[in-house]
């Protein structure tokens, strides 16, 4: 038996024959007494851009962070690349990854971009970009450098390759962080509110880079407050409310003809 809430998700899956890159099923996450996610399901097929929207405290960042186990889900199923993340209970009754190697392997296929950039401050931009390819994926240094130069050029930072992150603007740091994520040739890009920490005039340059990635068919899961942007680039929008998927669908439907009263109000308040 399918829960009634699963019906829209199934319809959405049927539209697309591509392989499923991320599959989340009935995910629960509790922080102590606080029940942040109350059974969320999500699916991203190759080439899809999933935008997760919702108010503060709706659990959208937690959902994203559960996908690569930066937060350990309390219960539920997460499959990345068709591989289910093995979880077990530790001695305190918390759910933790059962196989560290598996988590590391899965993480190295997911390019995460953080709200606060989180570039490594003791490395120049080029060092930041080649760090994971060279030390985690075992790419030859020269090959990684050539690739990193291309990526930095692509995000418009070629001339900043030997500069340390602290000397750059937030927009430049975030673009470098996107280059770092692209360098691992990720199966899926995960964006956790990538423009929320930026000055308004710097948001555009970062959204342009993300938009270009979306248009070239990269699979992405994007937590964002930029509704206009979500409407432009997303193939599927998920509205979270209070730890549950309140409504989901193609952007035209979510933004053009929302059914849920809460979503209508949310869009009115934000827009």
């Amino acid at each position, binding site marked *: 038996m399918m829960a009634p809430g699963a019906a829209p998700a199934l319809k959405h899956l049927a539209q697309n024959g591509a392989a499923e890159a991320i599959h989340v099923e009935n995910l629960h996450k509790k922080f102590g007494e606080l029940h942040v996610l109350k059974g969320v399901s999500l699916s991203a097929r190759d080439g899809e851009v999933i935008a997760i929207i919702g108010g503060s405290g709706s659990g959208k960042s937690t959902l994203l962070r559960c996908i690569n186990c*930066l937060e350990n889900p309390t219960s539920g199923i997460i499959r990345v690349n068709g591989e289910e993340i093995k979880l077990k209970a530790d001695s305190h009754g918390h759910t933790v990854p059962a196989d560290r190697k598996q988590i590391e392997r899965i993480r190295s296929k997911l390019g995460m971009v953080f709200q606060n950039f989180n570039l490594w401050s003791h490395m120049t931009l080029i060092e930041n970009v080649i760090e994971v390819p060279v030390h985690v994926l075992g790419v030859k240094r020269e090959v990684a450098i050539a690739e990193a130069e291309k990526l930095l050029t692509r995000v418009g930072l070629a001339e900043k390759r030997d500069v340390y992150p602290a000397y750059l603007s937030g927009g430049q740091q975030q673009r470098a962080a996107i280059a770092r994520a692209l360098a691992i040739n990720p199966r899926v890009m995960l964006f956790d509110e990538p423009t929320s920490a930026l000055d308004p005039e710097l948001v555009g340059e970062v959204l342009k880079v993300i938009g270009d990635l979306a248009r070239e068919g990269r699979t992405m899961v994007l937590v964002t407050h930029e509704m206009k942007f979500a409407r432009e680039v997303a193939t599927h929008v998920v509205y979270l409310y209070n730890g549950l998927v309140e409504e989901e669908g193609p952007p035209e439907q979510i933004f053009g003809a929302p059914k849920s009263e809460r979503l209508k109000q949310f869009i009115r308040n934000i827009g």
Partner: protein
Amino acid sequence: MVGLLHTIEIAIGATCLGLLIGIGGAYGKLYGGPVVRDLLAVYTTVVRAVPELVLILLLYYAGTDLINQVLAALGYQRIDISGLAAGIAVLGFVQGAYSTEVIRGAILAIPQGQIEAARAYGMSPGLLLRRITLPAMLPFAIPGLANLWLIATKDTALLAVVGFYELTLATRQAAGVTKAYLTFYLAAGAIYLLVTLISNLIIGRIEARARRGMPSLKEAR
């Protein structure tokens, strides 16, 4: 000169040993289970509470005795532990307690997002320590660790009480024989000062390198 050489050997050895203990201790205190954390708390508290002279006497005499008893019990011959090895072990053990706290503070000062990013990209704990945590904590740890190094160079003088031939004991013997106390002790003082000055130069270089990604405070003023 042999005295000075011994002093520097011990200080370097003790600092290196102290750093290793400190890194392990800081990691244990931050990420270890309750038992590990409690044991480390006892270690850092006791070592930092007891005067170093007492610790040196205790560890040197009791420590060598203990090792020999263990060896005897296992049917081996008693060994003479070299003063150098004993000195490094004892001072390193003391330094380790202080470095544990210095390094723990430095690791806490790293913006946690940088460690999270490393985890998010699939770094194993060992790689994360080597590539991210250690280099990122270094700028915060160097002032404290530099203090510890300078203290180590002078703590070597305490080893004179267990008869280890280092700078202070050499000075005392030379001064006793020649009766030129002022000359020899002033000379010894000057040598300690010289060691400190040279250390400052080297530490300055290391610190500039460790802080390479950080804008200087002067520019921010």
